[in-house]
């Protein structure tokens, strides 16, 4: 029933298709891309959109379409792994805090407050600068800023669920704490988690783009949308509009898709909202 609801709304259906296209492009990059993304060609440098190069070429004569497709892989990988790390770490911490309570809860919550005290991007900026901007560090930087969101979310759900009788009943039947958490509590926390993760994916891609703009993005030759947009932005003034337009659109479409799907998922999965439908 959720599936139908998800596709019923025209907007979220379009978003779903957009996302599928991006994911497909990322997975099948080598076969979809017409050229080798790193193939330089001085003669074809900075040539505009043409049949030969549907999205034009950059300063080194590299085909933008191929780079865009390969970059999709990097961006999705970064977003996915950052969210996965944040989700994993955040949930375990949240579950621990929620379930254990007492000083463990207090300690974790104060740490979370401290990290949450920094606007996400500012912290990511600091961490990337400190650790250097290799791909792994960028993922770590984004993950760190997202951990608190999941920790609080899971802790909140955990406290709510723990109070419910059935958790009590499960405990009396003799299930071990970890077993209770996995079997009984986590499935219940699934809806908000999925919604939050989807929205976070979009946010992660934006953060990488912003980091690239201030020079802390992912290292060349790894092409990444944010970096391509940041570099392309400089060429708008000198007339090469295609260098910034297409990567910018790619970011916007993907982040838009993640946000819209996140929104619809929230409507679909969150019972409270369903009534209002």
């Amino acid at each position, binding site marked *: 029933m959720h599936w139908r609801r998800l596709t019923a709304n025209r*907007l979220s259906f379009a978003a779903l298709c957009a996302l599928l296209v991006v994911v497909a492009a990322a997975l099948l990059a080598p076969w979809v891309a017409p050229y080798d993304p790193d193939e330089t060609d001085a003669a074809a440098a900075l040539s505009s959109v043409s049949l030969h190069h549907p999205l034009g070429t950059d300063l080194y004569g590299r085909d933008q379409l191929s780079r865009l497709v390969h970059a999709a892989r990097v961006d999705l990988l970064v977003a996915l792994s950052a969210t996965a790390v944040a989700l994993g770490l955040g949930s375990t911490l949240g579950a621990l805090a929620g379930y254990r309570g007492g000083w463990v809860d207090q300690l974790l919550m*104060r*740490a979370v*407050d*401290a*990290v949450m*005290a*920094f*606007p*996400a*991007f*500012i*912290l990511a*900026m*600091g*961490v990337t*600068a*400190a*650790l*250097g901007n290799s791909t792994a560090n960028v993922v770590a930087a984004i993950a760190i800023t997202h951990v608190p969101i999941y920790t609080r979310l899971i802790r909140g759900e955990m406290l709510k669920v723990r109070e419910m009788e059935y958790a009590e009943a499960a405990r009396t039947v003799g299930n071990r704490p970890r077993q209770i958490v996995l079997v009984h509590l986590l499935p219940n926390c699934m809806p908000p988690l999925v919604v939050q993760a989807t929205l976070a994916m*979009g946010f992660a891609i*934006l953060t990488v*783009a*912003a980091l690239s*703009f*201030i*020079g*802390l993005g992912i290292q060349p030759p790894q092409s990444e949308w*944010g970096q391509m*947009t*940041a570099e392309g*932005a400089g060429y*708008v*003034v000198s007339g090469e509009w295609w260098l*910034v337009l297409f990567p*910018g659109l790619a*970011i*916007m*479409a993907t*982040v*838009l898709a993640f*946000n*819209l799907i996140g*929104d619809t998922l929230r409507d679909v999965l969150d019972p409270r*909202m369903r*009534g*209002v439908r």
Partner: protein
Amino acid sequence: MGFGGYVVRRLLLVVPTLIGVTIISFALTHLLPGNPALVKAGPLATPEVVQEIERSMGLDRPLPVQYWRYVSGLLHGDLGESASTGRPVLEDFRQRIPATLELTLASLLVAVGIGVPLGVLSAVHRDSVLDHVSRVLGVGGVAMPSFWTGLLLLYVFFYLLGVAPPPLGRLAADVTPPPRLTGLTVLDAALAGHGGALLSALHHLMLPALTLGFAVMAPLTRMVRATMLEILESDYVKAAWAAGLPRRRVVYGDALRNALIPVITVLGVIFGFLMAGNVVVEMVYAWPGLGHYAVTALVTKDPGPIQSFVLFVAVMYVFVNLAVDLLYGLADPRIRLR
């Protein structure tokens, strides 16, 4: 326990967070590769000179000692020195905070001025064209990297149409700045009655505030829409309507008043987005605020400004959230008169 107790408790809670924040900001800059002493000494300095500077900066002492030196320095307003401007960081902050504050407030005004009505109207006219457009617009706003929107707006309004001013800071070159009272040029100009300066300040604020405001509008619009939807279904709205109050007064009076209260909470989150967006928007519009100052410090690995900027943002964020909680308490009688 009353409202006073609530305030005191919230204040006490802030202390551990602030300590955590100083630890994180200290750790961050300590991890920075590159030796700040060398930056100070310059490329051709001999190793002895570098050591001498390291000792004077206390970089050779154990970490806890350095942390304590750093914190006690903070309490005395010693935020270290900036390598790029050669001035104490505190002086740079005092010069630049008003610029960032003015941009942040203007963007907040834009976000609230456009975001709230959009949220309300799309709730009232649920699933109408307006509802879908505002949703896509809001989500689109968040989805577009702000440097992209910034450059786009600049390219169109400044370069093509010539309607917007050149990205040269906060005032036109030929306008004498008003006497500096608050540091917020718009306010100072208004207070000093400088018509020309006020117009120029607003004109320069136009694009940056739009870019930043637009980027943070989505969470606000979505929150207002969700709350408004919920309230429109509530019993007291039905009761007010049943009691004969005109539909419009019910929606834009009773319902809206109640919907605006939770909006206050989202302002805390939005402040975070604004501080983050500041960095990028200031770069694009050459806005002499803290954002750009921090990025230059990051690029030149200058610990003083980075530590202070990250700390400043965190402290502001903590106090803004505190202010938001208190404001929320004041606005909602259910909390005020526990």
